[in-house]
């Protein structure tokens, strides 16, 4: 299945990719399987979205899709059908920080 992923600016420059990446993901389309596929294809992104050791989402990273905040969902939560079919992208977002 082809999954569309939109990365925040700094991770695009780090992975040297454009606005959107397309990933081939096998099996169930979940937070974990999509990020596993993303890290496998772009090793520089390991540790940037999930902590190297714990595999927990980094504190200032958010996951959005289909106008839903999936950041606090368990990693094996299936992503919305629209993401799984490639109709909608999965967004990795840097959390807002203002001052």
């Amino acid at each position: 299945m082809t999954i569309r992923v939109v990365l925040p600016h700094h991770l695009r420059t780090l992975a040297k990719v454009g606005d959107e990446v397309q990933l081939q993901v096998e099996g169930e389309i979940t937070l974990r399987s999509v990020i596993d596929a993303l890290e496998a294809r772009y090793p520089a992104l390991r540790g940037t979205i999930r902590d190297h050791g714990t595999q927990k989402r980094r504190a200032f990273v958010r996951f959005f899709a289909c106008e839903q905040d999936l950041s606090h969902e368990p990693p094996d939560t299936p992503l919305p059908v629209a993401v799984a079919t490639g109709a909608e992208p999965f967004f990795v977002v840097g959390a807002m920080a203002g001052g």
Partner: protein
Amino acid sequence: MSSVRVLVGTRKGAFILTSDGARRDWKINGPHFAGWEMYHLKGSPVDPNRIYASQTSDWFGQQIQRSDNAGKSWEPVGHEFVYDGVPGTHQWYDGTQHPWEFKRVWHLEPSLTDPDTVYAGAEDASLFRTTDAGKSWQELSGLRRAKGNLWQPGAGGMCLHTIVLDPTNPDRIFIAISAAGAFRTDDAGKTWQPINRGLKSPYELPDPDAEVGHCVHRIAMHPSRPGVLFMQKHWDVMRSNNAGDNWDEVSGNLPSDFGFPIDVHAHEPETIYVVPIKSDSEHFPPDGKLRVYRSRSGGNEWEGLTNGLPQSDCYVNVLRDAMAVDSLDDCGVYFGTTGGQVYASADGGDTWKPIVRDLPAVLSVEAQTLP
């Protein structure tokens, strides 16, 4: 003709400043890694076009970048820093014990002999080493057995920020941690001992001359005299003549002995430089005058160097890794400020001028002297 390359890490990217040996006209190249915190960049002494850089972000964590062509292009290399074994706990701000957690790399120190070997000083305080040009990093965990449970973070975090390699003895390394103190290994990192005898911290520690817990800000050494160390502590400028076994205060007539960086003239091992800061509560120069102080006697007698530096209304800070020297004749001295200026002196500190005035806050400055 010789030339100089100055590597500048800032809160929002890295910059590479280059000049010929006259050091009058400079080219500014950057930002590299725009928007990222670039804690430190340093070139290999044996292959100066190989540069390692610590790239960090509160959002996205730690990256290490390596360039093999003097910063023209970069490649991300290994950035997984895993503590060896179960790291245990250290003192926390409230006096409780707190688990060791990796946050970032503050300082990269390439080997003096092998371009593929680099040491990395990390927060929470730990020392890592790569021997494959950054692909993988292993902790030298013997350091944490030097009473690591008693170490505690300073206000900036519990960071290992200083790594000094002995050019005459590959088994000897000095490191410094805020706020744990200075440590030395004589067996290439297997075992470490605190080297804090003579340091006094009456305002920071209940036992003012404790074995560990001192907030050491920076250590410098001249390569021709590796047993002589100079230290800028939180308060006090110190000197050791026996590789850290004992320290003596050499603050002398400084207007303030609080500060962050300290460095040694490239050709005069008794000439040292500090930048006095008013206090730990007010991180800016005394009286709004940015002055580098130079001692030609290895401490105690200091002269203020002001020519070309702002002498009114200046309230910047100069951080611990933000001073460096080149090895041309005369020795060049460089420092960067939290206001984004990088100042250079091509005459050992007698006169100064800014290379660049409006960078993001400067975290680190390193100078490379190129043939």
